[in-house]
């Protein structure tokens, strides 16, 4: 809809009535209804809302909805358009501070509210960011580049490739670290994609987002951004990592390896967890504390390998009991080149699927097996089912997460379609997507109610 629209968001009956009354949004009005007189400012209306009400902001700050059919007259007494803008100030430059490039893909990391749709619009220029999170200037010199403005569910191969290439260019230009603002839903897909597409980076590449949008006082956005900027500017871990809340309390963040991380709760702040391993490090706005030694350290050189390609004829099939062969057949018929199965237990599917899977393998489609338990390894020797499946030509993907296997298979298929070569590349680790061993503390889902866990929760540590 046109930004200059005088009745932004209003449609149908409401629009007709308001037009007839000569009303417009942002007008200070006196509305006479059959119930009495209401004074306030006419606000734009959410486009998803019905066409029977007009939204009025009372002078107390409250919004109310009035039925348009009760309106007798509208008197305009003034006009007050909102200037919803984060105070913009020039981001200070300090030659002594490291230079960080923040790439924007969308999401709510630093944002303002669109009262009309309820959507959150990113605030993104360095000036805006400085206005919203002035502490960033204590950490680094910031340059920003808006790549896209999409929600994370709309991130896909084209976006991965553009992001990877931009990272390559920035590294070449000498930047000390890169931060990528991203919606949280598919952050772990992007993290995996960038791990494969940007190999051996000399500087940290930190993906960050927020679980509470920054239009809320309790937002995690500012803290995440500060932690991520510091990890990018001064951290000594030069890998693609996700930087999000460690506990739900705002005390420290975790740095997760891009290939081992997954969003595990639809709304918790501490939703990102490293699966089957421990995170790379904890971090705060001033510090990065490694939890392990086997990370790639920051280097002075600029020797990064950008390998940005992707074949999107890949699918994940989340197996369920009684799955019918036509699911696999339709993928074959539609020309898919790769299938990642999230199988049950150690990596199993039922017998009726054998036939179409055999057919798929025969036709040169690469079929990979992962586990829907998320934690643990595929082990297809234990039961007959597993051995049967391997005979069909299905490749067990060790402890690669299903989403990571999907991303990796798309990336591999852009290099080769030969099944043997695909299998070889899939099983050759780029950075942690398969680990040789699972440490004893790689799987920890505490159960509430147990006395020792309750004791832990009382200390505010989760």
């Amino acid at each position, binding site marked *: 809809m046109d930004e200059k629209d005088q009745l932004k968001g209003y449609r149908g009956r409401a629009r007709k009535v308001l037009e007839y009354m000569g009303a417009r949004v942002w007008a200070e009005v006196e509305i006479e209804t059959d*119930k*009495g007189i*209401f004074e306030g400012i006419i*606000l734009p209306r959410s486009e*998803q*809302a*019905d066409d*029977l*009400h007009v*939204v009025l*902001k*009372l*002078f*107390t*700050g*409250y*919004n*109310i*909805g*009035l*039925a348009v059919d*009760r309106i007798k007259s509208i008197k305009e007494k003034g006009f*007050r358009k*909102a*200037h*919803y*803008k*984060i105070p913009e100030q020039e981001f200070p430059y300090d030659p002594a501070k490291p230079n960080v490039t923040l790439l924007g893909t969308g999401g709510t990391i630093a944002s*303002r*509210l669109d*009262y009309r749709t*309820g*959507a*959150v619009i990113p605030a993104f220029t360095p000036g805006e960011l400085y206005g919203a999170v002035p502490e960033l200037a204590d950490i680094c010199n910031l340059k920003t580049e808006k790549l896209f403005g999409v929600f994370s569910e709309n991130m896909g191969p084209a976006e991965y490739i553009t992001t990877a290439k931009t990272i390559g260019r920035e590294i070449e230009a000498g930047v000390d670290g890169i931060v990528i603002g991203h919606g949280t839903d598919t952050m772990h897909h992007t993290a995996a994609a960038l791990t494969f597409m940007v190999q051996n980076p000399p500087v940290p590449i930190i993906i960050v987002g927020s679980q*509470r949008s*920054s*239009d*809320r*006082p*309790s*937002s995690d956005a*500012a*803290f995440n951004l500060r932690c991520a900027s510091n990890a990018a500017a001064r951290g000594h871990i030069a890998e693609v990592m996700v930087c999000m809340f460690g*506990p*739900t*309390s*705002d*005390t420290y963040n975790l740095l997760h390896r891009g290939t081992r991380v997954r969003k595990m*709760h639809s*709304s*918790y*702040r501490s939703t990102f967890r490293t699966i089957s391993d421990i995170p790379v490090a904890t971090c705060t706005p001033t510090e990065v504390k490694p939890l392990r030694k086997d990370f790639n350290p920051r280097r002075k050189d600029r020797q990064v390998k950008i390998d940005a390609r992707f074949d999107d004829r890949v699918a994940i099939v989340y197996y369920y009991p009684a799955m019918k062969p036509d699911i696999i057949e339709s993928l074959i018929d539609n020309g898919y080149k790769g299938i990642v199965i999230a199988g049950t237990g150690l990596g199993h599917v039922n017998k009726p699927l054998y036939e179409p899977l055999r057919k798929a393998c025969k036709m040169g489609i690469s079929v990979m097996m992962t586990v829907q338990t998320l934690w643990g390894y595929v082990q297809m020797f234990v039961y007959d089912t597993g051995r049967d499946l391997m005979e069909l030509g299905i490749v067990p993907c060790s402890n690669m997460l299903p989403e990571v296997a999907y991303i990796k298979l798309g990336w591999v298929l852009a290099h080769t379609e030969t099944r043997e070569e695909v299998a070889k590349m899939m099983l050759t680790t780029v950075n942690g997507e398969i680990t040789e061993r699972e440490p004893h503390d790689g799987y920890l889902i505490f159960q*509430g109610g147990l006395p020792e866990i*309750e004791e832990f*929760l*009382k*200390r*505010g540590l*989760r």
Partner: protein
Amino acid sequence: MDAWRKKLIEDIDFDDKEFYSALGFKCGLEIHQQLDTKKKLFCHCPVGYRNDEPDAIILRHMRPTLSEMGTYDGTALMEFKTKKQVIYQLYRDNVCTYEMDDTPPFPMNQEALDYAIEIALMLGCQLVDEVHITRKQYLDGSIPTGFQRTAIIGVDGWIPYRGRKIRIQQLALEEDACREVEDRRHTIVFRTDRLSTPLVEVVTKPDMLTPHEAAEVDELLGRLLRASGRVRRGIGTARQDVNVSINGSDRVEIKGVPRTPDIRALTHYEALRHKALLDLREELHKRGITPTGFRAEDHEVTGLLKNTSNPRLRALIDEGEVIHAVNLKGWRELIRHETQPALTFAAELAGRVRVIACLDEMPNIFVLDGRGEGLGVEAEEHLRKEIGAAEEDTLVLVWGPAEDALTGAQEIIIRAKEAVQFIPQESRQHMPDACRTDFERILPGPDRMYPDTDSAPVAISKERVERLQADAAPCPWDREERYMKMKIPEHLAADLAIHPSARLFDQLIEETSLNPTLLAEALVQWQKAIKRDKRKVGLNISPPYEESLESFFKAAADCNTPRRALYYAFEKLLYGENAEPPSFLSGEELKALCKKVAREFADVRYKTRELTLDFLVGEIIEQSQGRAEPAKTRFLLSSYP
């Protein structure tokens, strides 16, 4: 203190219209009353209080955000300056991830919305057609999201008072905040049990013209809310904020007045505080200290005071803390201007320093105007010389960790400058004496409101309003009048009109032939008396459900239960026993009992036969647990020799 407090409130006519009108006294009320729903407003947690050890804690911080009009709210910025660590205490049974701000809201509790609409109708409000859930920012940490979800249900209502209308500005349905457990330095602890309990906020226009009127209208509104039969009762379920202004001053809010009668003294002395501040401003202007002529300097004086004789200051210097001296140019003596009983303008400065700089160990400032407070006269002289303070200047010392001491000094300057300009719009807390107030925070404005993008607007249909209108309780004054027409004594009618069982009473009167006064007595007085007795013997029994009361009294009406028998049976019911209201004894039963008693007490002879009969009738009624009809009994007995 009690004697002192007594002195402050006796001999004052809080209803002196002439005095308060000359002052331009105006007062409005904001009454917060929890609704009696089973579940919370935006999640499915049960409502309830906890006093046991919390199951878990979490830690958070707050940041201000923009309103949709594109501005920051003043309170938000002030509270951001305080940089508090907020700790929330959690309970598994009645706090979920919604209250923790780790899950978005569930759809609004429709039971609560119904109750709010009913109350809005009682107040004669115009209902909105579509309820928009709005976020009201609170950065003090009292709500983990940093905002309260609130929605206007009705506007422009009124209630009758002293032959005029007290206007109701609005009625909002909102979620309650946390309870504060502790607030020390940079850490504040909240208990989350109360969080998200549905409540209605009723806001009046500033139509009360004396402190006495304010208290009376508060009482009246409280009665009205209770009369709805939809509100929670007990300690902490209703709270009121009182707004006060006078000619030339702006609105100041006294938060959380604990008792209605306290409103009188609190609003009186608050009004006098405004007057004192206006007088102070005039005095300042006379001295040429105007908005443009105001001068203040902040000096860090830790080094100059390192040999101070004050042990507290010396100790903090040793610990690496710092001392600032704020020079208020030309203020000599004016800081000693009395603003409230036994308090001066210095208390205004100390309040800001306490809240905003988190320097809460009192005293937190020293006022130096020649008397050498805290330092000694000589040391003050020396300090003045060193920082170039003139004789007519006043110095204010503030100390603490470097960052806090600096914030404190800046706040002193801000508050002093305000004194030259206006009376700041503040939210103030009452002191323990319930007469005086102290700074709590800057009063938030409309800029702290913005729409809740997590919830869709809720349209209120015509059908819903009609249904609720039929269901809503009548106003207590209408009810009272009706009850008095039924010949119920006035005080009982007044109590019944706001009693939780009033609705049941109306229904029973409509559907049965029960005697109204008897029923009123049973529901109001008997219930209370029996419960009190039970509590005395240490029994704690929950009141019977409305349905069991209803069937009990219907049965009583059917068998025409005598008064005495009803009382006994009712007592049993309240003790949780399965009680049936009995009918009168049949002719045969009564005859048999009369015979038995007459035999038992054959020896008893009073002076007259009438007196003996009185005794026997009483005994028979007692033994039958009230089921013997007195007249019939007497008649039967009198036929015996």
